[in-house]
């Protein structure tokens, strides 16, 4: 998407966010966040108090001001997190211009109607340079389509009737040819509409874990409310009169404002990070689930291996030289336009055989691949040159292959490759070793996943032998060979029965049930409408390895939440040491040793704690939005590291911070 490169901290995001921070002061919105709502109430009461405490006006007013800042900073964080999504939604809306559609009516004639009047089931015709009026399925024809409005990818894609590439999205443009489309979405329910809503966060709902965390924060707020309110009677008993503003300051410092203020920003930012990687999560729940995934189901083709197999070696039969095999193999492949065939031609060049063009071979008759012969090749200069699976060639040659060819076939199979036997009508010449090329860096990546406790399972239609070899090379933990689409669903169900969470990526219609069943089902944007509806995420790039990034983002989101919660609670220790002695110092001067930070005066101590409490929210916005740095380590290691940083660090940092602020406050004679 065009706005993807926008940094979150650009003025065009930050400036509107300031205004939004004020708009979000609406109590009806605030009440959804109990922690910040209590802070807001505190701010209001202190503001009123500022006018009613003559000797203390400056102090009370300052406290009130910083309490307002605390609330505004939290609102600001949320507004910034929403900012980029809003900008993107705006950009998307602009692409959705009013269009007319060529609707085919029952009599087969074309009438021009408003795109907004189209309903599910209508059939429209889209010609070159026209905008596709709504989401639909191609029922006839093929076309190149510019989908950059949605994916940001400017290279056109091919969409055709039948198969897994028949879905088109409203708002994209046909660049060539003409297609007939059956509409699959009513106005306002299309992919683009949904995308705008999601990007904007309009229909954002709290995720299960967010709800649970909000309950925790609310309960802590209640407990601290109790602790602070009861201080009033305890004070009366002890002969100390705590003023409202002091109690409010203590309360606001103790309730988890840091995480309370940043919680929703963290969630929004998590979805936003996915969006930057061109993954559209249909709900925050899916992002959260991504962090929990135990098993990754990966299709071999396209995810683990490059889509196509390549020739890597020629294995000659006895009495035949390698170049001879290469020569025959090339001849047999000249007319073979499949990637495999082309790779044979390329490999043969290594033996000094230049690639010949078909027209350079007069009299050659090409024999295409058929399901009956399962061989392809060429009849040229009286020779019938063929290449094909061992079984087919064996039949072609009358039932048997030389022993060393049989051996070569077996060896290639065992190593995970595909053997193709090259033969003339007289005898077998040798074997072409076709190999699945495993994508680079995957083994490393899978190792990282293993360290995090995530199991990877490769799914392939290959036989056991081949599957095992590739599985080993790619470094996956397990594989399912000779898999039919329904096996995938069965595997997911079986793993889920054992309590595991499953992620998978898919595109075809036959993937839809599995995508729906999986806890995280990522549909490729190139995939069918059914697949896109079944999954809970859509990868606009249609890149299967994206699943790995999705999981990392999910984990990062959860870690950020946990880290800031821990940090927020750990902060309270220092705040106690700042405020409690300050509250009691006048009546009980003996407790001076508790003032471990040697803060200037009771007023400056309280003010400094409140200021720290507000500033830490602003200071942590970048962390909340970018997420805690994720390291692929085992749980124990991650926990220890984060505990040290956010737990122990959370205890120590405010001591330093409050002391520094106190120095400034005292230096400026603010209190």
């Amino acid at each position, binding site marked *: 998407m065009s706005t993807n490169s926008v940094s979150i901290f650009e003025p065009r995001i930050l400036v509107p966010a300031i205004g939004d921070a004020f708009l979000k002061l609406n109590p009806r919105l605030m009440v959804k966040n109990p922690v910040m709502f209590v802070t807001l109430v505190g701010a209001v009461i202190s503001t009123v108090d500022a006018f009613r405490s003559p000797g203390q006006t400056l102090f009370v007013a300052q406290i009130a001001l910083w309490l307002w800042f605390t609330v505004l900073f939290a609102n600001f964080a949320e507004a910034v997190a929403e900012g980029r999504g809003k900008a993107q939604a705006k950009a998307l809306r602009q692409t959705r211009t009013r269009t007319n559609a060529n609707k085919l009516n029952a009599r087969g004639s074309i009438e021009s109607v408003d795109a907004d009047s189209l309903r599910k089931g209508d059939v429209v015709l889209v010609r070159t340079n026209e905008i596709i009026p709504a989401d639909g399925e191609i029922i006839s024809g093929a076309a190149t389509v510019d989908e950059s409005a949605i994916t940001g990818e400017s290279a056109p894609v091919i969409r055709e009737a039948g198969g897994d590439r028949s879905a088109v999205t409203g708002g994209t443009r046909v660049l060539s040819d003409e297609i007939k489309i059956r509409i699959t979405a009513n106005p306002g329910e299309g992919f683009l509409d949904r995308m705008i809503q999601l990007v904007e966060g309009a229909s954002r709902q709290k995720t299960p874990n967010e709800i649970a965390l909000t*309950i925790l924060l609310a*309960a802590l707020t209640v407990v601290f409310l109790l602790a602070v309110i009861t201080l009033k009677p*305890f004070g009366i008993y002890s002969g100390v009169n705590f003023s409202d503003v002091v109690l409010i300051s203590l309360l606001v410092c103790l309730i988890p404002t840091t995480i309370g203020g940043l919680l929703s920003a963290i969630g929004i930012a998590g979805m936003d990070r996915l969006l930057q990687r061109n993954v559209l999560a249909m709900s925050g729940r899916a992002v959260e689930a991504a962090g929990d995934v*135990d098993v990754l189901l990966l299709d071999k083709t396209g995810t683990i291996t490059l889509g196509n197999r390549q020739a890597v070696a020629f294995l000659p039969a006895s009495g035949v030289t390698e170049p001879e095999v290469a020569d025959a193999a090339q001849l047999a492949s000249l007319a073979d336009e499949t990637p495999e065939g082309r790779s044979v031609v390329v490999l043969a060049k290594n033996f000094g055989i230049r690639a010949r063009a078909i027209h350079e071979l007069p009299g050659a008759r090409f024999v295409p691949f058929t399901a009956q012969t399962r061989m392809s090749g060429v009849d040229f200069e009286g020779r019938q040159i063929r290449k094909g699976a061992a079984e087919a060639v064996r039949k072609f040659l009358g039932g048997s292959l030389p022993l060393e060819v049989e051996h070569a076939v077996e060896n290639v199979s065992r190593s995970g490759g595909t053997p193709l036997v090259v033969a003339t009508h007289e005898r077998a010449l040798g074997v072409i070793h076709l190999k699945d090329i495993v994508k680079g860096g995957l083994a490393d990546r899978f190792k990282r996943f293993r360290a995090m406790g995530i199991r990877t399972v490769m799914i392939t239609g290959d036989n056991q032998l081949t599957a095992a070899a590739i599985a080993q090379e790619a470094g996956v933990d397990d594989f399912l060979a000779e898999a039919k689409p329904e096996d995938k669903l069965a595997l997911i169900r079986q793993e889920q029965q054992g309590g595991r969470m499953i992620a998978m990526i898919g595109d075809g219609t036959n993937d839809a049930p599995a995508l729906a069943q999986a806890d995280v089902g990522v549909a490729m944007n190139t995939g069918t409408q059914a697949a896109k509806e079944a999954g809970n995420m859509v990868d606009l790039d249609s890149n299967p390895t994206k699943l790995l990034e999705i999981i990392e983002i*999910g984990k990062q989101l959860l870690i950020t939440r946990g*880290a800031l919660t821990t940090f927020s609670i750990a902060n309270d220790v220092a705040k106690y040491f700042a405020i409690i002695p300050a509250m009691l110092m006048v009546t009980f001067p003996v407790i001076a040793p508790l003032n471990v930070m040697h803060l200037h005066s009771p007023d400056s101590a309280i003010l400094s704690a409140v200021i720290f409490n507000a500033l830490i929210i602003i200071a942590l916005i970048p962390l909340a939005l970018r997420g805690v740095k994720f390291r692929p380590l*085992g749980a124990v290691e991650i926990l220890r590291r984060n*505990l040290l940083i956010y737990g122990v660090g959370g205890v120590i940092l405010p001591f330093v911070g409050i002391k520094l602020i106190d120095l400034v406050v005292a230096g400026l004679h603010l209190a």
Partner: protein
Amino acid sequence: MNAHQWLELAVYIAALVLVTRPLGLYLNHVLNPAGRTWLDPVLRPLEKLTYRVLGVDATKEHDWKQYAFAMLIFSLVSCLFTYAILRLQNFLPLNPQHFGALSSHLAFNTAVSFTTNTNWQSYGGENTMSYLSQMVALAIHNFFSAAVGIAIAAALVRGIARHTAQTIGNFWVDLTRIMYYLLLPICLVLALFFVSQGMIQNFKPYTTAKLIEPQTVSVQKTDASGKPVVDAKGGPVMENQTLDTQTIVQGPMASQIAIKMLGTNGGGYTNANAAHPFENPTPLSNFLQMLALLCIGSALTYHLGRETKNQKHGWAVWSAMFAMFLAGVLVCWWAEAKGNPIHQQLGVAVADGNMEGKEVRFGILDSALFATVTTDASCGAVNSMHDSFTPLGGLVPLFNIQTGEVIFGGVGAGLYGMLIFVVLTVFIAGLMVGRTPEYLGKKIEAYDVKMVLLAFVILAFIILGFTAWASVSNWGTSSLANQGPHGLSEMLYAYTSGAGNNGSAFAGLNANTPWYDTTLGVDMLLGRFGMIVPLLALAGSLARKKIVPAGAGTFPVTGLTFVVLLVGTVILVGALTFLPALTLGPIVEHFLMLKGNLF
């Protein structure tokens, strides 16, 4: 803090460690309805007969609501039963001292106190309770309330260990088996041992003994109506009184003391509780009482590990409890051994530290250890007066109670209390490993968090709420023996002790007033059932969940990191909730003491 005392502490710890596994294994059999024990030949027929008499179908398990309902009904009925006996004790037999009936508020307070395993006593046993009241009304609850506690813990452990299950056990079966196979046999042996140490067990009226040396004491003069006489300046008028006789308490003591300790009840037979020579005759009886206090709480952690097939987790929970126990003992012991600086300046300090309110027979360590153990275990039995501890020494028992009685804790209650913190820890820190929180394979979701926090908020609410109310009310402050911060500590201690179902008292508070009896009664009820019911709901919810198999990415609930985290959560959450109140109480008092002010 000499070598001899260090050795005693070491022996105590060793004994606690050694008893944990065997008792845990035994518990495992007791808490499993199909479990087998070597007592089966004798007790199995009795157990079956009990079910038949009660009309209980032992094969049918309860879901959490049925379990909670059965538990509540049982507690209600047994509580009313005790209330009735206490109100009618003057008409009932076995009352050689002819004690009158208890007032309604004292009877309510006492019945609730014993039903909730608190054993807070607003009365002195030897001059209030008939033998029947002691043996039937009170001792029976020592067994029942302990058994209920263990049953709840067992149900919660089942909830954690089971998956996709609807039920968490049968309350009546749990109760019966715990009574027959666990509490009664051990108590029988313990009681016999205590008798061997010189503890009494009889139905004789109190004995009056003639003093060999009559003693003269100076007491405040009272007029005919019992009011103290004051002189012109308002000061008390003193007169000398010569004492030549002494009343010696008698009664069925050993049978009650065994369960008082084993069931972490703590309700003393006498007002002096375990400081009384009959209730705690020898150092050996003292040692065994302390061991009896913690052994079931300790063994239950082993049971947890065993049931969840994660023994390391059981030991991790144990270690967290143990670490806090040890820290408490050492601080308390150190503070008491160091003594009172003012006494030292005046030259009246005992060489061995602060001996005020302590039995000379036990000394500093045994008193500090007992105080720590009894408050860890929510027991409430005391062999010294915590009120007389130094402020820091007294802070340890207070803080122990305010952590929610989770350091081994009351039988059963300690484990389920600690599991609240375990769930809380897992929930807060669990996210930091990059997964939604899960505990032993169970996802901790909104409902579970709600239940755990409900239990937690209720506890904070009643402790702080009642103390705050008392501190600004006439009824609250007029019962205080001490003013200033110490008075606040007394009130805070009372409501903390009640809500935590501990029952130990910071002496000095006259709690037998209608207001205190009633508010403390409510405090105890909410502290017990306000916690148990949400916890049973948690057990039910956990039982229904699937178990996610553990892997490298699973939050570790074993090992040092987890133990540190758990201890941190217990202390931090405890401290954060109660620190403001504690500051105005013991902490201010401590600093005032250092400056020479005493209360």
